[in-house]
């Protein structure tokens, strides 16, 4: 089959890549939003306001990447969309409930009467926690081939905890960039603890996926694959070592290197995601349905593809504009 000749081949591949990209962007961007929410109980009231201020202008757009990811799954791989979401019925429900609580608490905590602020803070934390846990749970169950059994649920519960801690890590890294003084020092402490979530999460999934599927085992541990793929784990380990070393010394007085933990965290998430994508390709529903079998008609995909070529760069550009406008240390968010 020629690569750019047959649209039934390159279109599904392109959309799988786009979906993967959206999920990765979502995990990193909303990951730090959710992480900031997860760290709420450890912060004082004034710090909470500052933490919210650091994500206030961004969270809405960050969450839209999830809509895009689920949208691509829906429109490009409709059969897979139904299969995956019906088998994840309850965790999806908890995720949505969490996202609802988290999203509205942003607004209610400052607009409702002050006497309710504490409760909305709690809802913000609870929503972030529910969303993080259920995302981790779904990740674990997906790695386990979407099978429900005691063993898979136990594994998924582990990944739920690890991803949640991992999110709090990337959230802490974000706070390091966006704040200064005592809160920044606190965030460094949080990041030192949160990095364990990343280590354990990546470790657990890397160990488990080859064991679950002989196909994945072959893809990673065959020869010469294991040599060609070596940079992936080596680079991840190096980044983690770097973070470990850097976080001991931070924060620096002149704020010079304080962006590095977040950048390293992004790189680690990206590498882990790349590994996961490599493991599961070409399947969209693990071991059951490939992206080619699940794809919509090429004509429908082509219509979306044309739009994507125009719109996606525009989205990236104006997202960059928003991050640039709200660059620097977070200030109190006011409407005036």
């Amino acid at each position, binding site marked *: 089959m020629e690569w750019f000749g047959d649209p039934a081949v390159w279109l599904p591949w392109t959309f799988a890549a786009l979906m993967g990209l959206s999920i990765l962007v979502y995990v990193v961007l909303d990951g730090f939003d959710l992480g900031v929410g997860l760290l709420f109980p450890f912060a004082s*009231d*004034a710090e909470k*306001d500052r933490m919210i*201020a650091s994500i*206030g*202008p961004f969270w*809405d*757009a960050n*969450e*839209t990447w*999830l*809509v895009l990811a*689920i*949208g691509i799954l*829906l*429109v490009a791989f*409709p*059969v897979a*969309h*139904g*299969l995956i*979401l*019906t088998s994840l*019925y*309850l965790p*999806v*429900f908890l995720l*949505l*409930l969490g*996202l*609802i609580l988290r*999203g*509205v608490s942003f*607004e*209610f905590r*400052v*607009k*409702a009467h*002050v*006497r309710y*602020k504490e409760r909305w803070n709690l809802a913000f934390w609870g929503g972030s926690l529910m969303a993080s846990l259920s995302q981790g749970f779904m990740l674990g169950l997906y790695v386990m081939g979407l099978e429900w059994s005691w063993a898979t649920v136990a594994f998924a519960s582990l990944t739920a905890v690890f991803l949640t801690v991992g999110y709090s890590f990337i959230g802490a890294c974000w706070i390091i960039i966006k704040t200064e003084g005592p809160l920044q020092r606190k965030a460094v402490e949080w990041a030192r603890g949160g990095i364990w979530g990343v280590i354990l999460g990546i470790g657990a999934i890397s160990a488990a996926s080859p064991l679950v599927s002989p196909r994945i085992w072959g893809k990673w541990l065959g020869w010469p694959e294991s040599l060609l793929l070596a940079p992936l784990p080596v680079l991840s380990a190096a980044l983690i070592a770097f973070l470990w070393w850097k976080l001991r010394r931070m924060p620096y007085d002149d704020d010079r290197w304080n962006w590095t933990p977040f950048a390293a965290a992004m790189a680690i998430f990206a590498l882990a995601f790349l590994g996961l994508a490599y493991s599961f390709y070409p399947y969209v529903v693990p071991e059951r349905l490939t992206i080619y079998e699940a794809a*919509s*008609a090429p*004509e*429908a995909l082509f*219509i*979306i593809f044309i739009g*994507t070529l125009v*719109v996606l760069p525009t*989205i990236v550009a*104006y*997202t960059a504009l*928003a991050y640039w*406008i*709200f660059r620097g240390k977070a200030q*109190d*968010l*006011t*409407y*005036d």
Partner: protein
Amino acid sequence: MEALDTLVLSRIQFAANISFHILFPTITIALGWALLFFKLRFQWTGDAKWMEAYRFWVKVFALSFAMGVVSGITMSFQFGTNWPGFMETVGNVAGPLLAYEVMTAFFLEAVFLGIMLFGWRKVPSWLHTTATFLVAFGTTMSAFWILVLNSWMHTPQGFELRDGVVHATSWMEIVFNPSMPYRLAHMLLASGLTVAFLILGIAAFRRLLGDQREEVRSQIRFGAVLAAVLIPVQIFAGDMHGLNTQEYQPAKVAAMEGNWSDTDGRTPLVLFAIPDPEARENRFEVAIPNGASLILGHKPEHVVPSLDEFVTEDGEMLHPPVAKVFWAFRVMVGTGMAMLALSWITVLHFARKREDANGVRRRWVISTLPRPLLWAMVAMTFSGWLATLAGWYVTEIGRQPWLVSGVLTTAEAVAQVPAGMVLSTLLGYLAVYAFLTLAYVSVIFYLARRAARGNPVGTLESPGSGQAEVEAIAGAGPRGGRGGRDAPGGGTRGGGLQPAE
């Protein structure tokens, strides 16, 4: 009574979700444009009252937007969790439409919302105005794509079926399907009316609390005039939409009119009745002779579609449940009539020249507005929601038993998830939605009370920890630079105040 099986529960769950969701876009679509209007008025006149209006309503916008986003995400997931058959069958049409909504509308709104809400001091005024415009434009684009898809589900065309799966043949025909222009116009006008009555009701509420400021008068005037202009247009658009429905979905019109078997013209307009699906006739009917024929055909001989035409030989019913559609329609029209009455009485009263406090005769003197009229405005604050929901019930229940008319039935699309599981999530959603709707409405009235008292934030409530810092910033920050009008503790207007968020 239908058994509570997976299908019924899934339908109730989706109905609950979409009913909850629609409340907020209905507000944000038109409120975005209202905000742009306030901002432009401020730029042109320099009158602070318009910026006060902006700063009050932008908070309502932010809250409504957040509610709309989270409930919209829920919906996009429910396609998969509960209705996989929908995308599997019509995904080749619905997919691109939804994709374009996300790409052209969602990101636009979400990104520029940040600048619109918090960028007022960070970016030049023109960029802030542009952001406001782009958010308003984005919400309207979003409405456009969704109504294209929804209209296509009612009046599908431009496709062919291959192996039971829909494939697009003409995107022009799909996008510009027969009911789209009517449905879009009807919905956008509904949004405009919802916002007109929301602004009117909240401003009247502030006035009743004793808020004497200019901005309150301007907002009452804005809401009343907008409502008075839009409602006749809406009645006309609704009538056109009804005629379009009569052409393409006659069973729905038969249910709306409660016409079971009348097939020889001179059909009465039923004002009140209790439709009886067993006997297939109306009980306790109160009707105007020839009314339905006159409305739907502009002549008494016009033959109105009747429900009996949509029962197959073997007794299968291809028309929607009658009572729900019949009553929802009457609630919608009734609310519309109340809107017409209130807005016109208000404008006729308000626009007449009267003596103001200084004895000068001029128009739009607020002190002469009777209190009962102000209370009526407060009572109708959320009347737009009632009419919109009722209207959606008419059109969506009216499409049953089809999900996509003539292509896919609702029963075919449902996921075979255990009923108990659907029931548990349904109860969960209902509890959250009820709670959030209550919280939303009470917070809006709370914001209005706070604005009416004109108190700076933090003096009404016992300051929590962190509050002192907020006040210090509010006083010493850039705010002080604006001509000292917003000096802390003094005449600071509650309308635009927001503590650190």
